[in-house]
């Protein structure tokens, strides 16, 4: 079997400061194969976003961050990459979609200029007119009806939903093999969020892109992901295929999370116990979801 697009094995993260070390990740393992949509779901502070930042190589630049463990991207250990090589991967082979599209686009440049910059990362000597034509095509792929108007607009002239689609188009512009989506659509209205997810699902299926989908919203995860890792306080507590995990949540923490979600079928708000020690129980892995062997 070929190596997974992304393989994280026993990843540790601690921040060292004047007041001692703060352990953030306690050895998490995740893998994503080509074309798979994998969710990492947990509450704020559980370690979801730092995991994404480590994969992108952004946290490595923070001097107080102590990182241990293996991250392999398409079979290659990213710790062995020079910062320059890692930089070259970002925006080309691995790309990212952020939570709030309007603030992650630069307000002082038109979409066309920002899009050219993205395309130049893939093809450094791309012609201006060629880049604009390609950008228009990519925007059209993202169900944007009038790409020309969008290209000549500034981000603040567009709605949140449109900006989100522009972000998706940019993230997929250089045909990445890994897309990291950190809470996409959380800042948007539910109907727009639903459309965004549907669009993302279609596009990644068409390009066979591997997706690491980071979210706190179990409902969104259920609609988007093939497989789910549940993270609690820097530990993966449960891992399984989406249908299995939602039909039969086994870890006490996953169960508490599921119980806490108000149901549209009613039933009131459940009594939620205070954080219990059982939440720290060892990981539960559903059938057929073992982590792959790592080649020595």
């Amino acid at each position: 079997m070929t190596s997974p697009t992304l393989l994280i094995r026993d990843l540790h993260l601690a921040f060292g400061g004047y007041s001692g070390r703060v352990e953030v990740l306690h050895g998490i393992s995740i893998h994503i194969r080509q074309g798979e949509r994998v969710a990492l779901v947990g509450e704020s502070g559980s370690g979801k976003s730092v995991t994404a930042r480590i994969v992108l190589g952004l946290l490595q630049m923070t001097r107080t961050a102590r990182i241990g463990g293996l991250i392999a991207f398409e079979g290659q250990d990213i710790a062995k990459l020079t910062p320059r090589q890692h930089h070259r991967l970002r925006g080309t082979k691995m790309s990212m979609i952020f939570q709030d599209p309007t603030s992650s686009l630069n307000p002082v440049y038109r979409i066309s200029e920002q899009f050219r910059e993205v395309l130049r990362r893939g093809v450094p000597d791309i012609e201006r007119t060629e880049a604009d034509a390609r950008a228009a095509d990519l925007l059209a792929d993202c169900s944007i009806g009038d790409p020309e108007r969008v290209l000549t607009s500034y981000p603040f002239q567009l709605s949140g939903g449109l900006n989100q689609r522009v972000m998706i188009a940019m993230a997929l512009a250089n045909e990445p093999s890994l897309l990291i989506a950190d809470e996409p659509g959380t800042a948007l209205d539910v109907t727009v969020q639903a459309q965004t997810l549907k669009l993302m699902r279609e596009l990644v299926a068409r390009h066979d892109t591997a997706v690491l989908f980071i979210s706190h919203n179990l409902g969104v995860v259920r609609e988007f992901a093939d497989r789910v890792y549940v993270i609690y306080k820097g530990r993966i507590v449960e891992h399984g295929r989406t249908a299995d995990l939602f039909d039969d949540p086994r870890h006490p923490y996953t169960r508490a999370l599921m119980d806490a979600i108000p149901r549209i079928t009613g039933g009131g708000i459940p009594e939620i116990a205070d954080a219990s020690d059982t939440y720290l129980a060892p990981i539960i892995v559903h059938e057929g979801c073992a982590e792959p062997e790592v080649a020595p």
Partner: protein
Amino acid sequence: MTAPLLSLDSVSKVFKVGGREIVAVDGVSLDVIAGECMAIVGESGSGKSTIANMILGVYPPSGGTVSLRGETLPARRTRAHRRAIQLVQQNPLSSLNPQRTVGASLRLPLDVHDIGDNAKRWTRVGALLEEVHLPADFRSRSPAALSGGQRQRVAIARALACESELVVLDEPTSALDVLVQARILKLLMELQRRRGLTFVFITHDLSVVRNIADRVAVFEKGRLVELGSVEAIFTDPSHPYTRSLIAAIPVVTSEEQALKESLTQKEEKIDHS
């Protein structure tokens, strides 16, 4: 039928932006009955926050009236009017003054509205904290030393401080994690029962509405498009917009999925526009 506690009568709000007129709220009439939880639901730009601001008297309506117990509320509210309607906002980190201790924040409404004497006010602060299930020694803490859920409890205690009957809750749990949300919602329901409070609960989250509201008012582009009991809205939503909102809710169980599909067959093919 009992007389409503709060009444909006053909309320409109028009904002002038750069020479253009934007109709934020368009002829809304709505009664809120004492003791109920009325949910106001809609997407961004639907006018829900504008309605909240007019209820609270942040600005007057451009047309129509807001009345409390049959008395039309003036554009400039008196202290008694302000005391009668309280607010809990979405983000407690920005709604609590970071320079004030929790105790000082809770004491302020008592001072402003001259409730009790000096000694009684401190006892009262302790009682308020107890009511939202926080230890009494939290009064000396600053908001920065609290978790998101604890801060929201303080904001709720502050809204209860001067014994108002009507509390406007503007997305009170949207910024919180789901476990914390469940506890805060539970607390709100408990307080409502114990104190006989009336809630105007503004939210975009229909799954929350399903479980805590008595009635729902659905807003689209400043208009009230559907009003009914929670049961009615979730068994037979009549407006297509309501159905599209329900269709978009991300759900976690197959029962919910089935309910969604049975309600929203017509909206299956919502497309990007």
